[in-house]
């Protein structure tokens, strides 16, 4: 029989104003197993905890029930308190008589009655509690960062500077991400390459950082502190150790008709290519789909011209298996496809472009060498219309329900840069709202209007119609003047919604990290744990978690790094003892539990069991204690009642329900 102490907290007046705390203590004293019950103003305070300690000693208590606030708030506090006074921390139960009781009821009598019942349930549970021991698991002191955009680069640099090894896995042939495609960046208008390239070089040269480009994560197993990851390093067909980055191969390659991914298909690249001049590593890859040698067996020009003898057509994909203590997802974003938005004539006219395409056009290294020109005829535009929120804030099936957050600012940037360089060009922006929260952000947008004479019109565009003379007739609303207006434009720029990169769902599945309906990775808590995934050991950095600009991405990247460092600094991790366990006599090996376990914690083994004197080999579920998060999904799925959660056993839960219904 347990010797239980019950401690009823007033929480100042938070509880005591609505619940008769004395009555709760009095009723608790009548329950089986209870040898002591008292109330106090602030149970969590030092004095309150001392009272608990004194009672443990005086009454030789074996279990505690604290009737107080939510266990989220103070369960850990009272468990530590119990431990300090020599009690197993898992012998403590919380009856939540604040959030579940005083805060939601007005009538004192009813609230008190409910508090008594909640206390009774907790007492019934403690009567069946058994001491639990937290286990330990080891920590591999190396981190993996998936995605080499500014988010991944910054996270890797911060982790490496703290002295830990970091590997970056980047899908494309170079690190840099979207930021390497941008021309100038708001709010300061510094050139994107000028601030990004040094960071890329730092990462590449850092002794603690290893970069796998043209590579993808293929398999992940293990758990926090001890992940095992298979990385597929795709065949570059170029020997990284030999290549000097001279670029002759790209120049001489006769296959030059593949749309350049980096320039968003606005011009073509060769079959052997680096995405851009400052690529890191500066080692080209052969696109085997485009390479004549791979398609017909003839050609081999690059092999002939390469002085370094770096070309290797026989190179094969390589699988690298490595262990990591922590994994950071930094897979970034892309702009959405516009095929459902016929009204903007994006697929009909070359002069209707996305903002990301405009970045490439404005960039000196881009397809037009930085000259603002119409892609249809090379003429200089005189009238440009920008449309904001294209595909953002759309609750229909065409677009995305969220605000992409960065478009208001980059549209103001584009409008301003154009007016600055080409003052004779008229610039009109159609907007629904201009959203510019951020340091110096609204000032930035106001400058576009007040100093650069950009014409902002509140209203959307309903139609862009290409005209026979090559111009674009833009029909839009001016809601302030209540007019429908028509503008004959030379160029239309669409501030296209952003979405998480393709393939992130696959990554999330491998990591058992949760993802929302828009494919953004979910954080453990939207306010208090914004850079952690609910899956232990998995962290989030950059736009893969939600739309953000560079300053915000870099801050989040640093925050994710700190969390990783905090984890890697530990030698051992304590594991949660409230994990599932299969009773070998009841388990029939049906495999239902493994199917529902969101953490992949369950496997099966064949084991000899002794069932009432009969020895036989049976297939039995085995739970990996380090992986199990104690969610309980398996226990309710198991058809034979074999799965049970330690600390939340079926018996304990039934006892609670019985106590409530008594």
């Amino acid at each position, binding site marked *: 029989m347990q010797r239980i102490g019950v401690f009823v907290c007033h929480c100042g007046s938070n509880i005591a104003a609505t619940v008769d705390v004395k009555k709760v203590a009095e009723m608790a004293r009548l329950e089986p197993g209870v040898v002591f019950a008292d109330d106090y103003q602030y149970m969590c305070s030092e004095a309150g905890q001392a009272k608990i300690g004194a009672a443990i000693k005086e009454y030789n208590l074996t279990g505690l029930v604290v009737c107080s606030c939510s266990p989220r708030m103070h369960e850990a506090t009272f468990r530590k308190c119990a431990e300090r006074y020599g009690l197993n921390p898992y012998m403590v139960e919380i009856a939540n008589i604040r959030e579940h009781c005083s805060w939601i009821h007005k009538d004192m009598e009813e609230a008190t009655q409910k508090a008594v019942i909640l206390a009774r349930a907790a007492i019934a549970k403690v009567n069946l509690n058994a001491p639990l021991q937290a286990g330990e698991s080891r920590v591999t002191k190396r981190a993996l960062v998936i995605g080499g955009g500014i988010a991944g680069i910054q996270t890797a640099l911060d982790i490496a500077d703290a002295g830990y090894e970091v590997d970056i896995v980047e899908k494309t042939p170079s690190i840099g991400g979207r930021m390497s495609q941008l021309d100038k960046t708001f709010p300061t208008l510094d050139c994107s390459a000028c601030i990004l390239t040094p960071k890329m070089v730092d990462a590449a040269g850092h002794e603690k950082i290893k970069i796998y480009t043209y590579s993808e994560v293929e398999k992940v197993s293990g758990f926090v502190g001890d992940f095992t990851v298979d990385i597929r390093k795709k065949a570059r067909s170029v020997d990284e150790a030999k290549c000097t980055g001279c670029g002759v191969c790209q120049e001489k390659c006769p296959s030059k008709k593949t749309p350049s991914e980096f320039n968003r298909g606005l011009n073509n690249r060769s079959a052997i290519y680096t995405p851009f001049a400052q690529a890191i590593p500066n080692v080209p890859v052969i696109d085997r789909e485009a390479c004549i040698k791979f398609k017909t067996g003839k050609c081999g020009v690059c092999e002939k011209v390469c002085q370094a003898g770096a070309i290797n057509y026989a190179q094969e994909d390589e699988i690298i298996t490595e262990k990591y203590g922590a994994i950071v997802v930094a897979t970034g974003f892309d702009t959405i496809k516009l095929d459902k938005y016929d009204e903007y004539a994006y697929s009909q006219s070359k002069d209707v472009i996305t903002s990301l395409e405009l970045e490439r056009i404005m960039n000196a290294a881009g397809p037009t060498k930085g000259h603002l020109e119409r892609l249809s005829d090379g003429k200089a535009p005189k009238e440009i219309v920008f449309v904001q929120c294209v595909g953002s*804030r*759309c609750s229909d099936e065409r677009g995305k329900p969220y605000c992409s957050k960065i478009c208001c600012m980059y549209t103001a940037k584009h409008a301003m840069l154009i007016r600055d360089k080409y003052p004779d060009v008229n610039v009109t922006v159609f907007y629904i709202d201009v959203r510019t929260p951020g340091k110096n952000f609204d000032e930035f947008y106001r400058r576009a209007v007040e100093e650069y004479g950009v014409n902002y019109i509140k209203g*959307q565009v*309903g*139609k862009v119609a290409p005209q026979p003379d090559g111009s674009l007739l833009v029909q*839009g609303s001016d809601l302030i003047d209540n007019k429908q207006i028509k503008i004959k434009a030379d160029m239309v720029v669409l501030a296209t919604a952003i979405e998480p990169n393709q393939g992130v769902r696959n990554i999330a599945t491998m990591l058992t990290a949760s993802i929302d309906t828009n494919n953004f990775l979910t954080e453990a808590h939207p306010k208090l744990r914004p850079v952690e995934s609910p899956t232990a050991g998995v962290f989030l950095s950059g736009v893969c978690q939600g739309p953000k600009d560079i300053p915000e991405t870099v801050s989040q990247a640093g925050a994710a790094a700190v969390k990783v460092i905090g984890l890697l600094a530990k030698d051992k991790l304590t594991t949660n003892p409230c994990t599932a366990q299969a009773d070998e006599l009841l388990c029939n090996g049906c495999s239902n539990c493994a199917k529902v376990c969101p953490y992949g914690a369950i496997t099966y083994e064949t084991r000899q069991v002794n069932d009432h004197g009969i020895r036989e080999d049976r297939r039995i579920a085995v739970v990996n204690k380090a992986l199990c998060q104690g969610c309980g999904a398996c226990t309710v799925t198991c058809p034979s009642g074999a799965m049970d959660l330690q600390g939340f056993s079926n018996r304990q839960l039934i006892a609670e329900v019985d106590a409530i219904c008594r």
Partner: protein
Amino acid sequence: MNAKEQVQQISGVNPYKCMKCGKCSATCPAYEEMDIKPHQFVSYVQSGNIEALAACKSMWKCLSCFACVERCPRDVQPGRILDAARQIVVRQRGGNYLTAEEIPPLVDEDLPQQLLVSAYRRYKR
């Protein structure tokens, strides 16, 4: 039920989903002929100004093409509001329904053909 609720019920439109983007008015081919514009159909319902809505000329200028319904990014369906307003007017004249034979004498010269199609669509239910 007041007039506002009546319009909401008949049209099935929740005017509060509107974010005042103007896409409907930017799209509407009959815009120039209208006294109250498509985005205003929604704001009139929001503010409960149904009397003005029921008296508007737009009601008989709308082509019932439902371009606004199709394009609205928040699925507000402004065109259905006018549809509902028309129905209320018809009800006020007496009777919920018109038979097919009753329609020709009511037809005004300027009435867009499409509107008749829309009317049949609604009244046959």
